[in-house]
């Protein structure tokens, strides 16, 4: 099946609008993606036909809602090739997933041990570990980044050592687009027996992941970045690792029995799913996964790679244009500055021309500091973007730069 981006765009009515009199060019996909009709319709369909609270209801709507939710759990399992559906936990987002694990490790990580992240992490993969280190007295370490925006891993053996308790890093950087050498890092982490977590915020929409092949302990995805609804994250965890952790939140669904004196907890996944789940979001995410898999992530990634290469080629001649993060291994993200202009000004003037990009620190302040920039402008591509949009982006950028210089 040929990749027909114009047919695909018909599934995203939001793209068909004008902003300040110009056709919308949406290039803020790394922040959040737009949703296909299949997802919007799945949400409506849920509320129009079978909305109910799940799990403990014997009535038909409750069973339909439960079946819907649980079949998405199975769908996610298959998507990332987890061993069993019980290893798939529904969370509020990646931030929630990582906090769940970092909290759970509070009495497992000890003073004298260390937690290893990288300099290019999103704040949600930094702050929870800083908090963990504060609670436990463990040390926070990180892999630095070179001028290409790649991890410097020569020193891997001094950074990850016998005292490393946790290694957590992103697969693909939202600020730079760099695809990190996951398996190499995991192998090293596993060799010292560390707990491992991979932040898949940016892998979800762009790359296939096989968690068993990786052998990673925890892997997390964000629905809203993968064409699904807001308010939902996925936390994969190996059964034995999840079972070794205490529950995070207390409440309904996650307990076996409760008396005023004591509660005993349910097994996974329920132990980590306190409260009424985001049922609608789960159903919508199922539709998003189906949509993505019908197109094929490899096809999507190839399309995006083409756009990225084209954008680099088109924009490079602009005077002062400087890419932040130009690794050979990149996905979908064009982070840049134009010398003599401020990213914020670029963002405002591009918006005036209908082009939506993100500007600022992208919740990755340390890597901005490392590159000595206050922020970047970031165009990020999704399955529905086109070369014509790259042309519009480039023309708008040129115009903005001319106004600002």
């Amino acid at each position, binding site marked *: 099946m040929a990749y027909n981006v114009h047919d695909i765009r018909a599934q995203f009515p939001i793209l068909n609008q004008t902003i300040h009199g110009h056709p919308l060019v949406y290039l803020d996909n790394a922040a959040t993606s737009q949703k296909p009709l299949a997802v919007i319709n799945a949400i409506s369909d849920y509320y129009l036909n079978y909305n109910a609270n799940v799990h*403990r*209801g014997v009535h038909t709507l*409750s*069973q*339909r809602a*439960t*079946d819907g939710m649980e079949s998405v759990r199975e769908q996610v399992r298959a998507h990332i090739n987890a061993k069993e559906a019980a290893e798939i936990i529904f969370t509020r987002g990646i931030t929630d997933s990582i906090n769940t694990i970092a909290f759970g490790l509070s009495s497992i990580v000890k003073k004298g041990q260390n937690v290893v992240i990288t300099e290019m992490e999103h704040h949600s993969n930094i702050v929870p570990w800083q908090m963990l280190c504060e609670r436990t007295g463990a040390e926070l370490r990180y892999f630095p980044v070179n001028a290409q925006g790649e991890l410097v891993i020569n020193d891997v053996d001094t950074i990850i050592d016998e005292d490393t308790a946790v290694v957590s890093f992103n697969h693909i950087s939202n600020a730079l687009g760099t695809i990190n050498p996951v398996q190499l890092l995991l192998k090293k982490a596993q060799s010292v027996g560390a707990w491992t977590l991979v932040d898949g915020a940016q892998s979800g929409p762009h790359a296939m992941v096989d968690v068993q092949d990786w052998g990673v302990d925890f892997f997390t995805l964000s629905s809203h970045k993968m064409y699904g609804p807001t308010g939902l994250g996925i936390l994969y965890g190996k059964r034995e690792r999840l079972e070794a952790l205490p529950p995070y939140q207390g409440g309904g669904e996650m307990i076996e029995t409760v008396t005023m004196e004591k509660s005993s907890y349910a097994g996974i996944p329920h132990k980590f799913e306190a409260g009424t789940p985001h049922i609608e979001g789960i159903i919508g995410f199922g539709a998003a996964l189906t949509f993505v898999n019908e197109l094929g992530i490899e096809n999507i990634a190839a399309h995006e790679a083409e756009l990225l290469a084209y954008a680099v080629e088109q924009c490079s001649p602009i005077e002062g244009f400087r890419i932040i993060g130009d690794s050979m291994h990149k996905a979908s993200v064009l982070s840049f500055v134009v010398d003599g202009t401020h990213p914020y000004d670029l963002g405002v003037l591009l918006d005036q021309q209908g082009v939506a990009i993100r500007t600022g620190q992208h919740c990755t302040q340390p890597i901005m500091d490392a590159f000595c920039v206050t922020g970047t402008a970031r165009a990020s591509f999704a399955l529905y973007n086109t070369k014509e949009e790259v042309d519009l982006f480039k023309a708008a950028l040129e115009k903005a730069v001319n106004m600002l210089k």
Partner: protein
Amino acid sequence: MSSIQEKQQVLIDDFDFIEEWMDKYNHIIEMGKSMTTLSEEEKEEDLLVKGCQSKVWLKAEKKGDNVVFKADADAIIAKGIVAMLIDVFSDQPAKEVAHADLSFLEKMGLKDHLSPTRANGLMSMITQMKYYALVFAG
């Protein structure tokens, strides 16, 4: 046709014969009422099948190559369902029980009425039965 399959077919035919679902439930309730139950002492905590909204106790014994089930429940429909399952699977070769095909539930139309969710425990009961059978089958 194995004995298990024969028994399943009887159930399918019985259910097919009854038109109204309320009557089918009446049938299930009758099966529950006529089931040999457990004594109070037999109802041990660790026989409870997890994931049922009502309490269901399931006991398994080895009899030669066969597995024999006994059960009880505090709700009558749950009792009827487990009675039905015992009718099919009890005193049958453990090996066959462990690997028995479950399409009869669908053929009975039960799956639509008792979806395999946490609340009703149908799947939990079957899983537990198969688990015992697997252990006994070695």
